């Protein structure tokens, strides 16, 4: 057992650090903070990563991956988070990309993979439907065979950034025979096709990132079907369990906790720093201690994956604990912001309002409630562990 870094690892870390500090510059950072420039910032940053060759560390080398060891991936993630840089958009690089290179045909690979790597297409995900909730396989959007096209009708919901998207990857029903999982296909759909309508959903944090996407007689060429018809569920499932560095988001949560600590130090209550308040300290260390553990839980899972183990139910553990920790830190931020935790976005500067981060703490906390709901709610994850790990029926 050994957790020290080799000389080569340390050199790699310096390289990563240097890249981040020069490539992620102040003007880009500012672009990320405003909603009007957010989309451009994402694309610009991902293009810079692409140029550096680091856009897809988890992809196989032949498709554009970096060929890094799990230690290197860990270092990359840790440095990214500690530089305060967001993860790349997962829909293309983390989700549909791996499905395409694993199950797609050569033509699909040739067309889509480079465009994903270069961030030329913005992807969004069409899994959930109104009413389907955690019971994903109950989906009803149907794709009917019409010669060399499918005709798609139905609706998808909770689609993040559909308003920006060029493409959507969808699970659609191509058969109603057999088990509900059996008749599902995996389809790529151009968002500019006639009959697609994007309806914004304003979320609890008063923002618009979620959408409902309606399909009315949308014609999709059959060449956009991934793999075989009616096997989409298998592809999607393999994707759900796909290796993903940082599934628990530990690196980002650590950074957020560190940030909270710094802010709490500056917050004064009755003449004393909030950071020295013992009840507040307990809140902090309850999270920090579990996070110190979770960081190693993640490493252990990664190590087991690297040595050939399949990340199955362990990824459920990481999801549950990781999202609980995220929410705990968001709650701590609200505690620090005190009265100011409720401030809505306003034209007034933070200097006038008297507080810097109340509004962002609010947004993170409120939207953060979704983390235990999406991607298979934490209740579903517990069911998975009960069955797959504990053997309980």
């Amino acid at each position, binding site marked *: 057992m050994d957790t020290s870094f080799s000389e080569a690892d340390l050199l790699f870390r310096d390289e990563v650090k240097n890249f981040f500090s020069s490539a992620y510059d102040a003007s880009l950072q500012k672009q990320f903070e405003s909603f009007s420039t957010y989309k451009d910032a994402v694309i610009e940053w991902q293009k810079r990563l692409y140029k550096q060759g680091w856009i897809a560390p988890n992809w196989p080398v032949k498709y554009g991956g970096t060929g890094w060891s799990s230690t290197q991936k860990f270092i990359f993630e840790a440095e990214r988070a500690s530089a305060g840089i967001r993860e790349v958009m997962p829909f293309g690089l983390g989700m549909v990309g791996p499905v395409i290179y694993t199950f797609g045909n050569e033509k699909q690979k040739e067309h889509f993979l480079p465009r994903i790597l270069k961030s030329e297409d913005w992807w969004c995900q069409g899994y959930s439907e109104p009413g389907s909730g955690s019971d994903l396989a109950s989906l009803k959007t149907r794709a009917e065979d019409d010669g060399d096209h499918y005709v798609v009708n139905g609706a998808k919901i909770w689609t993040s950034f559909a308003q920006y998207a060029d493409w959507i990857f969808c699970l659609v029903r191509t058969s109603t025979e057999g088990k509900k999982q059996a008749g599902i296909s995996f389809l790529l759909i151009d968002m500019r096709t006639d009959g697609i309508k994007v309806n914004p959903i304003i979320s*609890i944090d008063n923002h618009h990132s979620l959408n409902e996407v309606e399909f009315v007689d949308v014609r999709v060429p059959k060449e956009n079907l991934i793999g075989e018809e009616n096997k989409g569920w298998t592809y999607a499932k393999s994707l759900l369990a796909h290796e993903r560095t940082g599934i628990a988001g530990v690196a980002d949560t650590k950074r957020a906790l560190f940030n909270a600590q710094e802010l709490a130090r500056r917050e004064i*209550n009755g003449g004393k720093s909030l950071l020295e308040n013992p009840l507040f300290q307990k809140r902090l260390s309850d999270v920090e201690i579990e996070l110190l553990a979770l960081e190693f839980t993640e490493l252990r899972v990664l190590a087991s994956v690297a040595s050939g183990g399949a990340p199955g139910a362990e990824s459920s553990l990481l999801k549950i604990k990781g999202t609980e920790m995220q929410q705990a830190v968001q709650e701590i931020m609200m505690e620090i912001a*005190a009265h100011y935790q409720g401030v809505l976005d306003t034209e007034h500067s933070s200097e006038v309002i008297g507080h810097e981060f109340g509004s962002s703490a609010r947004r993170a906390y409120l939207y953060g409630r979704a983390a235990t709901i999406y991607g298979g709610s934490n209740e579903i994850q517990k069911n998975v562990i009960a069955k797959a790990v504990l053997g309980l029926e």
Partner: protein
Amino acid sequence: MNFDFTEEQVMLRESITRFIQEDYKFDERRRISKSSSGIDKEVWKTFAQLGWLSIPFSENSGGFGGGPVDVSVIMEEFGKGLVLEPYLPTVLLFGGLINSAGNEDQCSNLLPKIIEGDLLGAFAYLERQSRYELTDVMTKVESCSEGFILDGEKVVVLNGLNASKLIVSARTSGDQFDREGISLFLVSADADGVDRVSYQMMDGQMVSNFRFNNVSLGTNSLIGSLGEGSELIERVVREATVAISAEALGIMGELNRKTLEYSKTRKQFGSSIGSFQVLQHRMVDTFMAYEQVKSLLYRAVCGLAEDSDDIECIVHALKALVGKMGKQIFGEAIQIHGGMGITDELDIGHYSKRLMMINTTFGGEDHHQGKFNNLRYDHHSLA
């Protein structure tokens, strides 16, 4: 000992329930929250006509002479309706301070206007640096021949946007954290030298920061005795803390009720989600949390009414419990509602946001538990 409400209290409760069900539906509430003032002045007039604004004031000021039980009945029902109109800042804080410490002039000038719905007030006590400490006051008042000069800033003033009169806590002697030397002053929101900046909170409240630039105040602007404002503030804030805890109870009840209903109709994997044992037990937990808050609220309400010795402890305990159980209850409500729970469309999120704001108003869970610990366990004999 009894836990019964009087016939009058039952009628009061029913009249508010009816008003909310008929005239203050969620869409109406949403419309009001998006209006420029964030409140509806017609609604406020209705409150006045129904007598609700008179409840806590003594009969010789034209009030109803109600006590903490009556106030808690009102606030619990307002909680259920997520009422935006400024009962807390105008009636309980501003009115409460005038009622307990105003001189004859102040009472007879202001209370009837409050009761009639003609005056909206606010209590400006928070400062940028003060966090939850009521006695951390840097705003200064100096005496002068014609009265006083007020200089300083107050922030997150509830109902600041709509208030025409403010009560401002300011230091007339002592240092930043001293309990002694704080006084209360009546200030017109549109007086010379008063700058107001308003913004909205996630629960729809319009709050303001006020800058007072050497504002001249007349001698009759002092409320209570010079330098002895802290006790007065603490008392009124204590009563208001119990009142917003009652509001929180109303909200918790609604969240539990709506979540339970949803769990019975929402189907997943072929069954209603309310049939899943894990969710059942968690809804039992939130049911018990609600009952515990109700019990401690009743204890505090009775303690206020009977002026019991341990009321300070009990109110700290109550506010800490409201914070803790509130998080549990809205957390489960959102989680069990799934994706719908995080939309702006559904009321669940709005109830939750109001609970969050109640948690931070007058100090959060940790603040009050810390004060409780201090009173109960530090340097005290327990005999």
